[in-house]
């Protein structure tokens, strides 16, 4: 097996008395699509927030390419090749779509305007937003704003992308588009995908990690997870 691109060991986070994440271990292999599932409130967003550095863990370690990044601020982790898209859409509402993406590309490409413009055009075409380039991000439909988030992730050319419920609130046709997009992205990027839609999970994931009450309940291939009685009891049955 390949050395993991990202490893977490013993991650814990409590909010007041509430154990949101408890003793979670996670290993992501380069190139895989890993789905992270679990009921609402299971701690999925809290877990990935610790991985990207938005919140600090109470305990545990995080390694990226074998190097300890537990204490690194979020921006430094992004610079090492991680990208994050928020569960609650977070774009620059009052800036044009192309500037949203350009901001993501410029951190890598700097002052080279031609290179930035080329990257923006490429990425907008990839997610299908070329026609919206000049509009204000806040004027886009909800589904298009979610696509813009993905585009901002792509423009960073990350090695590991964390997507927190990208299909939440999308229409069925849009979900199908997303599936194709994530599959295309996964060709050259490891993906950690939080997702509620089980069709999407089963179609995309190489492996699935199930979180329940802040702890890892099960981990395995889609077939193994589908067959796991504990998972069925806790999650799939309920859904």
């Amino acid at each position, binding site marked *: 097996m390949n050395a993991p691109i990202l490893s977490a060991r013993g991650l814990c986070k409590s909010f007041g008395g509430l154990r949101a994440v408890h003793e979670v271990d996670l290993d992501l292999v380069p190139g895989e699509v890993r789905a992270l599932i679990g009921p609402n409130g299971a701690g999925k967003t809290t877990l990935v927030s610790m991985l990207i550095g938005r919140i600090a863990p109470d305990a545990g370690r995080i390694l990226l390419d074998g190097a300890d990044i537990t204490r690194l601020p979020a*921006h430094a982790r*992004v610079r090492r090749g991680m*990208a994050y898209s*928020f569960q609650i859409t*977070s774009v620059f*509402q009052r800036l044009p779509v192309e500037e949203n993406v350009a*901001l993501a590309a410029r*951190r890598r490409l700097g002052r080279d305007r031609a290179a930035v413009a080329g990257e923006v055009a490429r990425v907008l075409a990839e997610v299908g937003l070329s026609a919206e380039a000049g509009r204000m991000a806040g004027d886009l439909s909800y589904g298009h704003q979610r696509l813009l988030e993905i585009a901002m992730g792509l423009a960073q050319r990350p090695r590991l992308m964390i997507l927190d419920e990208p299909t939440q609130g999308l229409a069925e046709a849009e979900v199908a588009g997303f599936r194709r997009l994530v599959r295309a992205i996964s060709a050259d990027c490891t993906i950690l995908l939080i997702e509620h839609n089980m069709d999407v999970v089963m179609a995309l994931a190489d492996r699935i990690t199930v979180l329940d009450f802040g702890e890892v309940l099960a981990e395995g291939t889609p077939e193994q997870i589908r067959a796991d009685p504990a998972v069925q009891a806790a999650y799939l049955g309920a859904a």
Partner: protein
Amino acid sequence: MRAAGLHLGLVGLLLAAHFVLPAYHHGVLARVMVLAAYATGYNLLFGYTGLLSLGHAMFFAAGMYGAGLGVRFLALDPGLALLAGVAAGALLGLAVGLLALRTAGVAFMIVTLMFAQATHLGILLAGRWTRGDEGFVLQGPERVVLGLDLGDAAIRYLAAWALFSAVLLLVLRLVSLPAGRVLVAIRENEERARLLGYDTRAHKLRAVVLSAAIAAAAGAAYALLFGYVGATFASVQYSILPLLWVLLGGAGTVIGPFLGTLLMFYLIDTASGLTPAYMLVAGLALVLLTLFAPQGLAGEVRRRLAPWLP
């Protein structure tokens, strides 16, 4: 291109005004240009980065006293005094930035206000050198640089013009560079900017230091060109004024601070000729503005006519 043309056009217009304006307005414009440089520096932080400081008078005063005390006690020539003033402002900006940027929003406003109050108090307490509220006058040879007397109306105007033009074009350039775009990104959504890999804390600190340095350059120029150094310029009033000028002219526009400073000056000038309650007129103007042009003059122009306006 259009943006460069517009701003270079303003710079050219102000130079041309030197040759045609009657003495009174010529003097007014010299003062307005220095204060507009101050407002332009303020706007870099407030309008572009989204950080509302209520203590910028401390940076203006740092420049004013850095230059004024340098001339008085170290016999610096005005050129070096200007540099000393800018350095004093930048250092103060670095110190205040390191501490105040631990906070955000209202807390940032309060912390900057308190640092400015402390600076004001410090100036009053150091009365032995600063002469406190009364201040001191720079005169005669103290204001001569390269054989040019800054007290002379023509030279004063041209020096003010040079300072304002430099600041205007610097900020125009900066906001078009990637680093300037990041400031706007921080204003719009700091967490998103951080998660695009930008060290937002460092960018904000740089913005504070640059904004403070520009404010200090204006303060130093004010001391050298108008020959007076006084504690009033460190008072709360001089922290609020740039905010008003910027709001009036258009926050987050390059040209707005100048327009706001100019308009406010003539508004108060005209009103005080008509009524002793002239501040009421200024207040009314601001109320009308927030009702009908909440984005300020240049902001409204950008919204309605010229979306390309930087």
